[in-house]
């Protein structure tokens, strides 16, 4: 149900962003981006994770400061140094993880956010205003209720009410539908529609195609920090948007693919009807059937948060397999501990090395020993054979042409070096099954090639690889088989040459599976 753009005489943008550039160490998050926001419009900001949507909006909201570029309000450049400045200029933002205080009531939370909060609260008056506004926009919540007792959908209403009471006229919503059930999404869009009719400007950050086409007036697509294009709703179609989001890039690395897959060989990993419990906002895995054979890289595509992390953790044994079974190397491993799984020959490269793989205050060398303390322990554990640890690690480092210091605390390493360290550690164990999530995140071009080469080499030696990534180009060039995860289920399974980036992009954003979901 496409919304009709409000027809108005050519308006001036209320906010313009010009040449916004922002870099983080190692990443150019925004590269000379321009964006115009008009009153009475819903403007969708579309792009993959890491495309720079959130960064751009956090700059507008004063959360980050841009390296260069201007923000114009009604044509006048203004410096937005903090969210406080942004609020003074009637800009408000709802973050992905809400910022409400659970121990306070709805009215108290909203009062805290008001720009001119008097020393003595007049909660009655605030309650009154909440009721007025919530009636008008159909944002029904009880102002006296504790936030801790509200559902996620209600909390979102409170977040929006908060902005409205603080007299924001430009509302930025960061992936507002991520946490909502379908009927709640519908209700949210109705609210947004009525806000638009009252002259509010709304920016919707999202990567869900369907929603964009349903409610946005204009659509700006970002890709890798660049502006890929701005379309009016009437010009946009799913294909056009997918094309803008996932432009096919030239592969930076050519890998000779020697098809080694022998389906006749017993699979290294087999998940049959496996499922996990949903935790918090993240959907659990449902009914996963997956096999990884020796000599095969199985790529897992999907927008992050759709079950990739759970898939890796499920294989590792970090989270319980509550339904179905898991077989490793032909053995039923549904209930093995992580240590047993690792001992049986599984290597694990997690998505975030700092929080998930290393002990920051121990040295790099000590960290190298952590996954296999049993094999380096001497005299029944009374002594550790550090020479062996060092020797083995250095051998792998040479093979991969990685180099980093061994005798410094791990936390002093850069992100790229941490990732190299984890790759070296996991490859040293010569695993028969490798789970690699976001393998090349934070690596420079040369190390990226080396890391991929290491995986391909392991595969050529008969290992199986479960390769989780959001980089479609990388997935297509490395995988022997591809599966697509969406909301915890496998929505597609292909050989790379049977499909193309656009089809996978559709599946990742959930725009094709819509029919299946109803059944």
């Amino acid at each position, binding site marked *: 149900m496409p919304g009709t753009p409000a027809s108005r005489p050519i308006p001036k943008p209320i906010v313009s962003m010009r040449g916004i550039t922002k870099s983080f160490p190692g990443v150019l998050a925004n590269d000379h981006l321009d964006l115009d926001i008009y009153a009475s419009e819903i403007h969708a900001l579309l792009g993959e994770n890491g495309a720079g949507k959130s960064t751009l909006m956090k700059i507008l909201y004063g959360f980050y400061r841009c390296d260069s570029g201007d923000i114009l309000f009604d044509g006048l450049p203004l410096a937005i140094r903090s969210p406080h400045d942004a609020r003074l200029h009637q800009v408000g933002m709802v973050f992905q993880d809400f910022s409400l205080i659970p121990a306070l009531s709805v009215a108290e939370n909203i009062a805290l956010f008001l720009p001119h909060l008097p020393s003595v609260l007049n909660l009655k008056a605030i309650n009154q205003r909440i009721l007025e506004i919530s009636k008008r926009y159909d944002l029904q919540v009880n102002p006296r209720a504790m936030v801790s007792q509200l559902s996620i959908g209600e909390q979102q209403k409170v977040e929006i009410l908060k902005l409205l009471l603080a007299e924001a006229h430009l509302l930025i919503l960061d992936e507002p539908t991520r946490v909502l059930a379908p009927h709640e999404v519908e209700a949210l869009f109705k609210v947004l529609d009525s806000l638009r009719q009252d002259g509010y400007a709304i920016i919707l950050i999202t990567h869900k195609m369907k929603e964009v086409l349903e409610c946005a007036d204009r659509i700006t697509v970002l890709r890798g920090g660049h502006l890929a294009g701005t379309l009016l709703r009437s010009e946009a179609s799913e294909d056009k948007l997918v094309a803008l989001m996932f432009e096919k890039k030239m592969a930076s690395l050519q890998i000779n693919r020697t098809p080694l897959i022998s389906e006749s060989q017993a699979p290294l990993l087999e998940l049959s009807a496996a499922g996990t419990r949903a935790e918090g906002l993240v959907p659990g895995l449902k009914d996963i059937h997956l096999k990884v054979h020796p000599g095969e890289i199985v790529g897992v595509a999907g927008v992050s948060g759709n079950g990739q992390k759970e898939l890796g953790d499920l294989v590792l044994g970090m989270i319980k397999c509550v339904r179905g079974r898991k077989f490793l190397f032909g053995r039923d491993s549904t209930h093995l501990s*992580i240590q047993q799984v690792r001992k049986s020959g599984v290597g694990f490269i997690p998505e975030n090395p700092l929080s998930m*793989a290393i002990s920051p*205050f121990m040295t790099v060398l000590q960290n190298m020993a*952590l*996954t296999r*303390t049993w094999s380096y322990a001497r005299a029944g554990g009374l*002594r*550790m054979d550090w020479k062996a640890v060092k020797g083995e690690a250095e051998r792998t480092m040479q093979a991969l042409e990685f180099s980093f210091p061994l005798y410094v605390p791990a936390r002093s390493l850069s992100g790229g070096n941490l990732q190299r360290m984890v790759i070296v550690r996991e490859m040293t164990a010569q695993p028969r099954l490798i789970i690699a999530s976001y393998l090349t995140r934070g690596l420079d071009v040369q190390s990226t090639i080396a890391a991929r080469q290491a995986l391909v080499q392991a595969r050529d030696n008969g290992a199986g690889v479960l390769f989780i990534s959001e980089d479609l180009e990388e997935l297509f060039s490395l995988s022997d088989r591809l599966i697509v995860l969406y909301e915890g289920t496998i929505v597609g399974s292909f050989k790379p040459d049977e499909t193309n980036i656009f089809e996978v992009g559709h599946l990742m954003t959930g725009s094709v599976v819509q029919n299946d979901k109803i059944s």
Partner: protein
Amino acid sequence: MTKLAETVNRFPSGGQKVLQTVVRYLLMILLALFMFGLILLIAGKDPLASYKDIFSSTLGSTRGFSEVIVSMIPMLITALAVALPFRVGLINIGGEGQLFIGAAFATFGALTFSNLPAWLLLPLMALLGMLGGALWAFIPGYLKAIGLVNETITSLLLNSVAPKIIGFLILGFWHSPRDTVKTPSFVDAARLPTFFGTRIHLGLVFGLILLIAFWLVMKYTRWGLEMRAIGSNPQAAKRNGISLAKYLVIVMCLGGGIAGLAGMVQVSGFYGTLFPNFSMNMGFLGFMICWLAGADPLGIVLMAFVVSVIYSGGNLLQLTRGLPYAVINILLAFTLFIVLARPTFFKGKKS
């Protein structure tokens, strides 16, 4: 909690830093004494004379010195009972309760098997004491490992349960025919041997050996490595295949066992009997000493010694200077403040 463990893991424990550590602690203690001196002045007492009293009654005489060592023994052991779980990020405030239960188990051994010879009875009592403490610590450890309750709160709450159990046992079953509030005196075979004609007993050796073993285990062994990994980043350690739950339970029980041993040492080495409030807060003092020392073994020895001096000297101030006993708590509190302020306080001095 991870943050605490990080602090601990950063704390130097190498041999080359020994001297630096000693000097740093001495400076801090001098500062605490200076501030306490101001309090004494306000109270109209002569600080120098008071310190002289404390010194002469503790370090100044052989007997005084030996008494300092005697009161330091349980502190050493209960501090270690906190330091070990600390390394995996567990906060064991339950030393007091574990000490009580350990003492009760040991007393049971002493009363029941009083016919056994000392070489058999004493190890048996030590084992029983450790078993009792470990059982008491198993409750918070297990509840933590299955992700139910924070061990800090459970171990603390259990502290007020344990003395009631002791009271029940003593008043109901174990009291001596003549005296209802304590057990009969232990037989000689159930008493730890003492040295040099003083009251210093074998418990000192227990404490020192355990501290050295703790240091060696943390530094050299596979288990020390794995424990440090857990303390530094539990999630990563788990993913790396270290069985977190197992470690949490075992280490908590070990900590409890050590505290239980402190209980056995007190009833067997010091009192030779068990009575309801025998602990004199040794469990809590151990917690404070462990914090002051940053869970470092050498630091524990130093801090236990200092606290013990203050404690023994405090008794005397009461007698000679007419000061209330509570002033000693002021001095202890100053020491605590200053040592805990250490990270910023001496930053300029660090390279």
